[in-house]
């Protein structure tokens, strides 16, 4: 696989790991923000290759994990309305709401379909004019433009039976919120590379300027991740924090303007509730006035409530990187992949799920 296999070479990986070990002169804590990074790290068995003084925290970059319970509840309520077909990414299907999940609702007879692309949801709406097709738009800046485009298309085509429940969130405000939390100690960020293709490496610069914490935009193959870790360790040791781009083959300083323009055409920024982290200012998206007619909550008169987290569940602390999954009293006892309490366990890239599947030490 071109542009993939070259970055999985064992010899490069071994040497990068040794370099990291050589450069490390103190315990360093890095946060990999992105759930896809968590999965990649565990899938390839990278923790085995890293020195014990290097601690990798898993951050809140898992859109499923941070999607509030209220969003799932609202989706479930929508699924009970007349003639509704819910179209969702596979990631959301098993996330627990207050009483059940989309998978549970499907077992009760709700029409829930899994899609790989928002365009498939749009196509489904066109194919079945008798159904109200509601697309669940979650994801960060990588995914938001794709949702924005289908809303534009729906408007252009005059589709009456298509609506979107918006739950998209933004990454940089979350990084800021994490650094403002005194309980959390992070020496550097492995920044999400695919979000970076959209917002550009420059989007992480304010973090470096304001907090003096180095940021490296990283790709998702083993060589990409280790190179990013190496550069972060170097910057921590030399105390010269900057934004560096280790994923130049797809991330530019400026980002993807066409994608960002589309996002800005359709969405506006609002304060948003992140599960486990509370409300983070200017961290979420909603449809703007021009496109408000496509908002599923408004059209079907459904309200997203703020739902308190399950007692004992420490997903919030896990997402903040404050504790390891094993420090949560429910981990592997009451909360397991087949009966998850919180989304950190449901999402295949959630910190707890990754830990349970791959480590469990």
């Amino acid at each position, binding site marked *: *696989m071109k542009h993939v296999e070259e970055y999985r070479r064992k010899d490069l990986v071994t040497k990068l790991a040794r370099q990291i070990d050589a450069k490390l002169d103190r315990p360093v804590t890095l946060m990999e923000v992105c*759930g896809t990074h968590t999965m990649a790290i565990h899938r390839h068995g990278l923790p085995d290759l890293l020195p014990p003084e290097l601690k990798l925290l898993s951050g809140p970059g898992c859109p499923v994990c941070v999607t509030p319970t209220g969003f799932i509840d609202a989706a479930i309520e929508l699924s009970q309305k007349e003639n509704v077909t819910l179209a969702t990414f596979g990631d959301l299907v098993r996330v627990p709401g207050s009483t059940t999940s989309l998978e549970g609702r499907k077992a009760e007879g709700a029409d829930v379909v899994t899609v790989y692309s928002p365009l498939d949801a749009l196509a489904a709406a066109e194919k079945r004019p008798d159904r109200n097709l509601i697309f669940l738009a979650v994801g960060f800046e990588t995914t938001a433009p794709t949702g924005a485009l289908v809303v534009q298309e729906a408007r252009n085509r005059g589709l009456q039976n298509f609506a979107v429940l918006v739950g998209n969130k933004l990454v940089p405000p979350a990084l800021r919120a994490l650094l403002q939390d005194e309980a959390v100690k992070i020496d550097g960020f492995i920044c999400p590379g695919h979000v970076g293709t959209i917002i550009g490496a420059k989007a992480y610069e304010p973090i470096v300027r304001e907090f003096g914490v180095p940021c490296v935009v990283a790709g998702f193959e083993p060589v990409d991740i280790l190179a990013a870790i190496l550069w972060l360790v170097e910057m921590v040791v030399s105390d010269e924090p900057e934004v560096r781009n280790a994923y130049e083959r797809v991330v530019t300083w400026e980002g993807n303007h066409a994608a960002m323009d589309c996002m800005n055409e359709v969405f506006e920024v609002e304060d948003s509730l992140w599960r486990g982290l509370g409300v983070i200012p200017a961290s979420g998206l909603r449809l703007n006035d021009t496109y408000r007619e496509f908002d599923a909550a408004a059209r079907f008169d459904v309200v997203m409530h703020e739902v308190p987290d399950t007692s004992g569940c420490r997903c919030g602390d896990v997402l903040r990187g404050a504790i390891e999954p094993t420090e949560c009293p429910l981990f592997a006892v009451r909360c397991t992949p087949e009966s998850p309490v919180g989304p950190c366990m449901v999402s295949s890239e959630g910190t707890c799920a990754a830990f349970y599947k791959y480590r469990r030490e």
Partner: protein
Amino acid sequence: MCLAVPMKIVEREGQRGVAELEGVTREVALHFVDAQVGDYVLVHAGFAIQKVDEESALETIELFREMMAEEFPDEGRTS
């Protein structure tokens, strides 16, 4: 967040195209990139979200190799 894979554009018509990876093809939306047949693009949720800069990719691999050769000169170049 964000599973995306590099795929090669094999067909293009306006803002829709067909991309290929390991013999698998899929329709891909090209609204966000200016890509031609033969280009590699990063595909996420059915959309191309960026072109893969081939030159930059080669440079990065070269850079890694040089880094490694520098630090471990007795082990020779990794090629």
